């Protein structure tokens, strides 16, 4: 069975380490915050200028001056700080954020990522995504492995305009956990009940499968 959005978030959360500063993108990455293990502390960075993002507010706590990068109302965790956008991207570009999780339309075997624009169709902008992928060393991309019609999104070469070049090393899809190195995809784990053959079929770029591929534990 392919992973649900919640399960993808759950698996990503296993990559969190105690003391990590983490930036979570819009969509599935946001859900990762719900699965932070109880025995570790992480601090969430929101690129509009907040380090130490808390949970959503109650009706009484809502404050129009306190939002996250998805423009949702949020609260501040204990020990939070606020700052301007240049400072925020100094943290990001300067490589101070330990883990970045973001979504994508396509990735390819050379670690390229396309996530912000479908020409002639969707033109909204890259927001902070280009800075995030350029600045972070440790990035996990969350995405569906293929389109509804079975067209792979893990490609030999991205077809859409790039968000970043050669910057992605880890991809977690609804079917597999994949590492990118030396111009190839490497299968690390498969979703429970999903066969290696299914993953190969839906991966356009070269996929290296070494030995028995374990199922993800959720």
């Amino acid at each position, binding site marked *: 069975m392919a992973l649900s*959005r919640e399960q993808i978030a759950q698996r990503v959360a296993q990559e969190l380490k105690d003391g990590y500063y983490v930036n979570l993108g*819009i*969509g*599935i990455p*946001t*859900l990762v*915050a*719900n699965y932070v293990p109880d025995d570790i502390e992480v601090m969430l960075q*929101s*690129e*509009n*200028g*907040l380090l130490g993002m808390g*949970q*959503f*507010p*109650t*009706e009484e706590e*809502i*404050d*129009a*001056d*306190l*939002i*996250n*990068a*998805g*423009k*949702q*109302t*949020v609260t*501040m965790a204990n020990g939070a700080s*606020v*700052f*301007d*956008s*240049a400072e*925020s*991207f100094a943290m*990001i*570009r300067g490589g101070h954020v330990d883990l970045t999780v973001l979504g994508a339309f396509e990735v390819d075997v050379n670690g*390229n990522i396309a996530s912000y*624009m479908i020409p002639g169709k969707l*033109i*909204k*902008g*890259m*927001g*902070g*995504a*280009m*800075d995030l992928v*350029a*600045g972070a060393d440790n990035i996990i991309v969350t995405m569906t492995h293929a389109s509804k019609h079975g067209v792979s999104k893990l490609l030999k070469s991205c077809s859409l*305009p*790039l*968000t*970043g*070049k*050669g910057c992605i090393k880890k991809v977690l899809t609804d079917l597999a956990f994949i590492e990118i190195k030396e111009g190839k995809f490497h299968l690390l784990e498969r979703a429970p009940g999903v066969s290696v053959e299914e993953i190969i079929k839906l991966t356009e770029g070269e996929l290296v499968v070494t030995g028995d591929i374990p199922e993800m534990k959720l």
Partner: protein
Amino acid sequence: MAGFDKVVHSYEEAMAGLTDNMTVIAGGFGLCGIAENLIAEIKRKGTKGLTLVSNNCGVDDFGLGVLLPNRQIKKIVASYVGENAEFERQMMAGELEVELTPQGTLAEKMRAGGAGIPAFFTATGVGTPVAEGKEERTFNGRDYILEEAIVGDFAIVKAWKADRYGNLVFRKTARNFNPLAATAGKITVVEVEEIVEVGELDPDQIHTPGIYVNRVIQGSFEKRIEQRTIRPSNKHAEKGE
């Protein structure tokens, strides 16, 4: 003698001197921390051919989006513009020029503009459409592109408090691009929730020193919320941009 007193008492006075084809830098992230009434004054004045530099362009009926129906904006430099139907229409019809700029690069362009730095190198955007036509250089084995600073004829800024000298304090994430915009305007106009007497703000707590500020006006704000998310229902977590 006005001395350092930057306070003005009407919106007309606040935006005096803004004329067609000028560049306006605006603070704000989405609808958070925007100079609501300064934007309304630009709409009222009917100034046209503006180049706007702002992270976003508001929504159809609020924020910078209100300048769209009368075609007051010629060009916008922004990182994310997806919340606005009229915007999309004008862009697709070629009536509105859009320069999509990565958010961190946009912030740094303002910071550099205000700090007298004409351009800077960044790895952001290398190998993407953003790099097209830009000088590329390699430092320590990594590629960077040259991005130019931005200076505005005007900057419109929203702060929480100001004193009469234009020293500013921002509140929570309503700070965002505002302190950067404040430094990068030839004329910087700040709209605040409260003006206090000189000496009332703790010098250690001032975010933007008054030297960057030309005019201060006290406004009242709607503070519209774009995504009202409330706990405990986790469902809302998925509604983003």
